[in-house]
């Protein structure tokens, strides 16, 4: 028993657990909207784009959080603008814009030969190196974004479900999208330090997908996804302490295992108990004979 509590004696580990739970919950919450908008890859793409921004702000001595967030926001807006005005799918736009931005970061790093160490941390994630300032930035971002989703819950729901029609009903979809891009950039920037550029995609996509397998209600999906994100991050970091693997990889592998487990369970459930509420694809459509 004392051995299981051992990691909590270290300040860095406590900070890591708090940071991971905040980031895991935040990514999973954003992830609900990202997945339902069919932009699953934007987490992956944007974290690469933000890497470019981080490098540029370091070279220009701008505060990392501000520089990288602005960069990420501009990339997200550019993606949205490219897909709106041109016959280009959002997957292709994400591929072009974010990779170019990432390449810009790599190009600058490889020319400058300085401070490459920090950028490696951003690439692979170093949750154990999270300091007090990082923790504050993460907490602020998580609080602000959760508050926005809470207050504007109805607007985000309508604009995500049916953006075209939401606009006819007076929902300011343009503003909702812009706000969403900004929140997305903020999420990616604070998550990058903890999870690493390469692992963010999983933290954004897996929890909402697992939640979706378990519920048909939007509200429950939001709560469930956030909870799953928090739990997987905390457990993942905790396990990584004992088995000595990279913390980001540990979190992602744990989430992926949970996904496989829930998917198998829902398949078994729908095969053996076809009447259950969750077995969406197998539910019989009610007959049309109820008109009077």
């Amino acid at each position, binding site marked *: 028993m004392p051995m299981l509590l051992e990691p909590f004696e270290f300040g860095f580990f406590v900070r890591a657990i708090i940071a991971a739970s905040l980031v895991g919950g935040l990514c999973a919450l954003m992830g609900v909207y990202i997945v*339902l908008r069919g932009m699953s890859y934007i987490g992956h793409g944007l974290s690469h784009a933000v890497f470019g921004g981080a490098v540029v702000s370091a070279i220009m001595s701008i505060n990392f959080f501000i520089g990288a967030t602005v960069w990420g926001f501009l990339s997200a807006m550019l993606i949205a603008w490219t897909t709106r005005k041109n016959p280009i799918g959002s997957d292709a736009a994400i591929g072009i814009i974010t990779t170019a931005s990432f390449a810009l970061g790599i190009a600058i790093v490889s020319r400058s030969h300085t401070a490459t160490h920090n950028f490696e941390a951003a690439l692979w994630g170093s949750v154990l190196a999270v300091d007090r300032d990082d923790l504050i930035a993460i907490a602020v971002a998580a609080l602000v974004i959760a508050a926005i989703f*809470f*207050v*504007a*819950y*109805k*607007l985000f*729901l*309508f604009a995500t*479900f*049916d953006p*075209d*029609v*939401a*606009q*006819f*009903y*007076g*929902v300011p979809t343009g503003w909702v999208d812009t706000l969403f891009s900004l929140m997305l950039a903020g999420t990616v920037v604070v998550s990058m330090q903890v999870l690493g550029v390469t692992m963010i995609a999983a933290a954004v996509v897996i929890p909402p997908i697992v939640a*979706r397998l378990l*519920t*048909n*209600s*939007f*509200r429950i*999906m939001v709560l469930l996804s956030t909870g799953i994100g928090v739990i997987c991050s905390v457990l993942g970091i905790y396990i990584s302490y004992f088995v000595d693997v990279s913390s980001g990889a540990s979190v992602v592998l744990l989430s992926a295992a949970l996904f496989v487990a829930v998917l198998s369970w829902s398949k078994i459930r729908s095969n053996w108990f076809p009447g259950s509420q969750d077995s*969406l694809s197998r*539910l019989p*459509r*009610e*007959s*049309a004979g*109820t*008109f*009077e």
Partner: protein
Amino acid sequence: MLHPPELEHLHRPDPNARPIVELKNVSAGYNGVPVLSDVDLKIMPGDFVGLLGPSGSGKTTLLRTILGAVPVQSGELRVHDTPVRARSKPAGYVPQLETIDWNFPVTVEEVVMMGRTMSNAWFPWFRKQERELAYDMMERLGIGHLGKRHIRQLSGGQQQRVFLARALVSSPELLLLDEPTAGVDVKTRDDVMHLLHDLNHAGVTIIESTHEINTVAVHLPRIVCINGTIVADGPPNRVISPHILWEVYGAEMPVIQYHGMPMVAESAHFWIDRNGGEPLATVPDDSHREPVLPHTHPTGDNVPAHHHHDASSD
């Protein structure tokens, strides 16, 4: 069956009524390319109008223009007697069911309440009063018992009613529907049409786009034919004629009369071949064709279509 009390005060036949929708010489489209040009259209309170036209003719664009979602390039568009950008009264809109993401995790009540989103936009959740309004409307449409169902666990007719309920939950005077009977079976189509009739009798002005000529010919008092502009506008027995259908669709469509109602017979060649090469079509009430068909001069000058309101007040 369906008489929302809050709609019953609404004007039915009022000779002094102002148009609820008025387009004067409107051209509209995207990126400077007009999809619709020189559209003149007046929709009066209490009208029930079907928009007929081939794919790509601008039916949906016309609906979206009225909703203020398509840039008006020239001309004047007024809805509820105000320029469309500044309109205050909501119009209900029912999208084509095809465009709905049926895997999205929403229940019936969540969708219906979306119709009230902007009535209390910055309050975090839907309030009791909004929930009651939503359930009132769902009861009227016969889906009150389905509130907790996922939208995919419904029949086609029920799905259509969910989106109708969302459109009606704010008691709009104007209801726009994009192909409400596309891809549903015959019985559901009939049910939806009767439901719309009931709404219309309760005072709701309705504009629907459709591909189903015979359905609108039977159910609707007024048909507007579109193909980039308005080709004809009037009651079914004047508009549904081989001549006009040729103008609209560019295809030969024999029209037969059944109990005084015009009907289009499908597969024209099949029937004409069996009639010794003679056209089968009888043109109903051909003498009235002139007023409903805009004169299209070879120069391209369009004289605006007459409206049956104008014609009947002569």
